[in-house]
Structure formats: C-alpha cells, structure tokens
C-alpha cells in the first residue's frame, strides 16, 4: 500500500521518491488505521489501483535484479517446503518456524543492501539468512544439527548468524532483537560508516516494551535503523486483533516522531520501494523508519502448531494473493520474463534445495569437543 500516514520530523523524507518509484501513485483509500487492509480482497483492490505504477517500476529495474528477486523468492519457498518435509521425518529437531507467504518481505528489503548494511531478525530466519548470502547448504545442515551447519550445529533453526554477511542473527526471545538492532544502528552512526540496519520482527513483538523503548531511542538519537514489522497477522495462535489495542502498527511511529508506513507485503516491488525510501532516509538523514509490512503466514507458527485458531477458508483467501504468483504475473505483463523462464528458475531452485539436502545429509555430527567452545572469547 502506498504510505497513508507519515509523521514527525521525518515527514519530508518520505516525500522523496525512491530510485524506482516515480511518486506518481494515487494515495490508497484506506482509513487511518488501515484495518481494512487486513482484508485480502480490499488489499487486492488497492494493488490493482497501483498496478500501473508497479509495472512502471519493474520497467525501471534491471532484468538481472528482477530475475534474482524471483529466484530468491522461489528458492525460499522450495527450501521451506523441504524443511517441512524433512522435519516430519525427524531430520530436524526443536522448533522450526517457516517463512512461506512472507518471501516478498525478505527479498523486497534485503536485496538492495550494501556491504556496510546490517540485518537482524527473529527465529523465523532461514530465508533472511539465505537472502543475506548464507548458503542454503549451511542453513539446512544447521537445521540437521551438523558440523557443516551455519553455526556448527550449535544454534539450530532459530539461530543463524554470519558476521561475514552482516547477518546478526536469528533470535529466539520475542522482541529481543529490536533492541539489539537499535544498538547495531547506533554503532553504524558512531563509526560514521554510512550503513543502515534492517531490524525484522513480528507484529506480536510490537507488544513488548523493548519495541517502544527502542523506537524512542532511535528517534531521540537519530539512528539509521529501519524497523521492519512483518505483520503476518498472528503471534502463535493469537491474531493481532486479540493482542493489540489498535490495528495500525505503522501509526505507532508517530509517537516517537519517526516515519511510519504501511506496505503491502504481497507486492515485492512495493516492499522494495518502501525500503528504498527508508534506506535513503537512514543514509542521508540518519533517521529511523518503521515499516509495517502486511503479509500472511501460510503454515502453522512452527512445525508443532495444529493451527486450530483459523479456518482453511481464511488461509485460502490470503493465498489468493500469493506474492510469488503476483510477481510472476507482473513480470510477464511487463515482458521481462515468461513461462519458460519461470520453469527454469523453478528447476534451478529445486536443484539448489537438493544440493542443500545432500550436503546436510552427508555433513558429520559436531565433534563432542565443541560442547565447551565459544562460551567465552
């Protein structure tokens, strides 16, 4: 969705258009709290209204980038489906939270980062880790608890990390990473690196005190932190309506004098542009942004969630707006890629996932001597 509400000192910043966005879109017809955008049909209406400018943006983006975006989305989807499959046969233990349905968020935000930028997220971290450049082989081997895993089998599904790729981790305590991400942005500003931090968290994490404490400090100290709320509508079995006193998360930015924006998380181009605006604001003005990106969690909260709190009908309605399908349709319409390309991308992604499985299966167990390493530096 185009931004409906921007506030505070940063309001000038949001009027700037991104590299691709022409800023020519008609404002969305949404109420102040954006409640109706939870409704997939309403969201699709808004999407259709933006369609022309979306195609315009696609034309302004290089074909290589677009192909990579689609490939990463498809890879993320296949990878997570494989995780579900091997989890069920006991290859993976512990918690395993899948990203299916939310791919446009990771791909739309992270693929435009520079090497000086940082990323931090929650336990739902496989796709973010891969998009950041961690090999699918290392992610899957981590899920298998093997020595070849991304952190040598010590972390599992929830705790991917790569210092080399500026991936500051998957974190298991709801909301904890919001404060840590704020500190990463603090360091970027302190060192004048020009880098920005993308700090991901779920909508339910917004109810933790740390969210509010962090946004206040970021607003107060002008930190280059981009807070990305992945609103997939549920925190475990609790819908946002049952846990939050208002429905707009983007609007909470106002309380801290920072920019806030609703984004349609099923529209990867929209995500990309909103992020570009936020990155620009962070780099050139050192101002934080809160993006509320609305998507939907197709699978259970984790692999052990029976999911009785929502109907299959509800899930189907959201799946009508699948981010991969929508993106493919637009790419086709814009004449960038066609059915043959899609098949090729699909095959490449499947082959990559198979390589990851082969690697994980053949990776040895961590050596017992690893138990006591890295407790202290």
């Amino acid at each position, binding site marked *: 969705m185009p931004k409906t509400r921007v506030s505070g000192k940063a309001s000038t910043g949001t009027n700037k258009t991104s590299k691709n966005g022409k800023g020519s879109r008609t404002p969305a017809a949404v109420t102040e709290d954006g409640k109706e955008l939870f409704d997939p049909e309403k969201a699709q209406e808004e999407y259709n209204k933006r369609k022309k400018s979306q195609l315009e943006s696609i034309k302004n983006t290089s074909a290589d980038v677009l192909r990579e975006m689609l490939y990463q989305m498809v890879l993320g989807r296949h990878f997570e489906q494989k995780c579900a499959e091997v989890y069920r046969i006991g290859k993976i*233990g*512990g*918690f395993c939270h899948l990203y299916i349905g939310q791919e446009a968020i990771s791909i739309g935000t992270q693929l435009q980062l520079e090497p000086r930028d940082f990323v931090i997220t929650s336990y739902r971290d496989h796709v973010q880790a891969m998009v950041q450049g961690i090999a699918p082989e290392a992610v899957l081997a*981590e899920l298998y*608890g*093997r020595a070849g*895993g991304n952190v040598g*089998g*010590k*972390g*599992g*599904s*929830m*705790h991917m990390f790569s210092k080399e790729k500026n991936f500051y981790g998957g*974190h*298991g*305590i*709801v*909301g904890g990473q919001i404060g840590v991400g704020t500190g990463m942005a603090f360091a970027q500003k302190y060192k004048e690196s020009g880098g920005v931090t993308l700090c991901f968290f779920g909508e*339910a*994490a917004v*109810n*933790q*005190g740390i969210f509010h404490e962090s946004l206040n400090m970021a607003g107060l100290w002008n930190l280059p932190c981009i807070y990305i709320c992945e609103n997939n509508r549920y*925190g*475990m*079995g*609790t819908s946002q309506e*049952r*846990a*939050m006193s208002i429905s707009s998360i983007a609007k909470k930015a106002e309380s801290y004098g920072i920019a806030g924006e609703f984004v349609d998380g099923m529209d990867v181009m929209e995500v990309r542009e909103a992020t570009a605006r936020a990155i620009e604001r962070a780099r050139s003005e050192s101002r934080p942004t809160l993006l509320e990106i609305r998507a939907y969690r197709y699978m259970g909260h984790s692999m052990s969630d029976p999911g*009785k*709190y929502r109907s299959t009908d509800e899930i189907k309605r959201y799946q009508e707006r699948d981010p991969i399908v929508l993106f493919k349709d637009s790419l086709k319409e814009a004449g960038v890629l066609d059915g043959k390309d899609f098949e090729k991308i699909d095959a490449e992604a499947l082959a990559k996932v198979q390589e990851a499985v082969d690697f994980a299966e053949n990776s040895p*167990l*961590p050596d*017992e001597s*690893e*138990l*006591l390493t890295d*407790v202290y530096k």
Partner: protein
Amino acid sequence: MAELTIRDALNEALREELVRDENVFIMGEEVAEYDGAYKVTRGLWKDFGDKRVIDTPITELGFAAVGVGAAMAGLRPVIEFMTFNFSILASDQIINHAAKMLYMSNGQFNVPIVFRGPNGSAYQVSSQHSQALEAFYANFPGLKVVMPSTAADAKGLLKSAIRDDNPVVFLEQERMYGLKGEVPEDDDFTIPLGVADVKREGTDCTIVARSMTVPLAMQAAEHMESEYGVSVEVVDPRTIKPLDIDTIVASVKKTNRLVIAEESHAFASVGAEISHQVMENAFDYLDAPIKRVSTAETPMPYAKNLEELALPDVPKIIEAVKAVCYI
C-alpha cells in the same frame, strides 16, 4: 486414586482452585483459546470464560506486573510463562516487586501470586529456550520456589502454591508433562510447601534430585541395586525454598554418601547450597566428598549429540554414585 499425567494433574489443580476461590484467575500467553502452549490449561477457558482465563499479548513484564498489582489488591493470580526463559523479561516484577512488597510495606501488602510454567530444557530448543532458573529465583528472600517431579506432587503442590499468601515460583518441566502417576481424587488434596519426599528408601547412598532428575535418579538407583547391590535412597526436596534440609540431612546421616543431581548449571546452584548445608549439618557423617551431576557450563547447544552430552542422564548419575561409593 486416579492415574494422571503431570499435565492433567496440574490442570486439575488449576480447575479445582478456580472453582474453590473466585479470586483465582489464570493469565498468560495462549492459556485460553489455544488451551495453553503445552496444554496445561486445556478446557479451562471454555469452562470458566474470559474473566477467569485470560490470553495476554506477548508482554511478559507487563502481565507479570498486572498480576502483582492484582495480587496486592486482593486477587490470586496464576501467571503462566510459556516457558521460564521468558520469565527473565518479567524478572523485574518477580524480584524487584513481588518478592519485596511485604517487607517494604512493613507487612501491609502481601503478594499471593503463582508464576508457573516449564523450566529447563526441552528437546533441542537451543540456547535461549533451555534454561533452568531455580537457583536464580531461589536466591531472593521473599520468593518461594517449587519443583514437582510426579503427578501427585504437581497437583498437591500447585494447590498449596495458589493458596499460599506469598509469591511462589512454580517450576514444571516440559519433558515431564506426559509422565503418569497416581493422584488422590480428593478435591482438597494438597501437599504442604517445604516438605521433602523420600522417593525411594536406601541405606548406602543418597541422591538428592528434583524435577527432571528424579526419574533419572530412580533409574540409576535401580541399576546400582541390581548391578552392584548398592542400596540408594532418592530424596526429592520438592520445594527448593523453603528447603527441607532436615529430611536430606537425616538421609545422609543414614547413608553417609551424597550425590546431587540437577538440571541447572553447577556454579552457584541449588546443589551447591544443599551441599553446603549438608556440610554444616552432617560433616562428620560423610564418608566421601559430595558429588554433583549438573548441566555442562555452557549455553545449551542445538545438535542432538551435543545436547545429550550437556544434560544430566542416568549413566552420569550412576558414575557419580559409584564415585562416592568408591566402586
């Protein structure tokens, strides 16, 4: 007697106390409509409704505080932490507020609240989700700390905790929710806080175990009996604070040897405290230095082989018993 899982025994205790006292209410993440993340509160929301069984946002510090305030103002909250790892976010309310209130107010405001949920490791849930926090909470005067290991204890102790006029930290174990045991059917069955239970009588060596290590200690005891003819006594303090040191000391005076098995880390642990108190009260009766079996001094790894290596298990307890028996 009825055979119940620990999960269902806890559920019965909650149900009976909700019926008995209208000031009792349950609050926590997913406790109502979802029936509890580990199904301990199954069916309670359906039967008692929104007023008594309340789903919260993910806001541990906030709802723990609501519990403390409500308790000061006359209610008896049972606050569930989905796991005790998340209680760390609420520890300000538990330690700085609940634990201190009676003392700070010169006896005017007591805080009759129960903080409950699973403590310790589960199955490969890694560093941030596997912590055993009993020593942390037991360190603060004003808090009671309870750790049941059987279905009957779970039920009787939880009922006592809810009826207690002090803040009680009630630590369950996810790995144990499915364990079955005989539970008295009397609605008014309670077990007083602060009373240990001898789970197995023996004459040659005492194992003090709690929560998850109790069933492990029982197996180790069986093994020592059948393989080595060593008669092991297993003592479960059940309440960590107040600690029934008398029962432990009496056992050590009889067996002259002590192994302490615990899921927490060893450093500054409850086991260290017990060891000290035994030294003070039964030094002359000990025939061997006290041994402890604890979780390795490391955050919990995810990989299955490393997790197994980190945790106490039957072979490690057997090894410790053999060591104190000089076998």
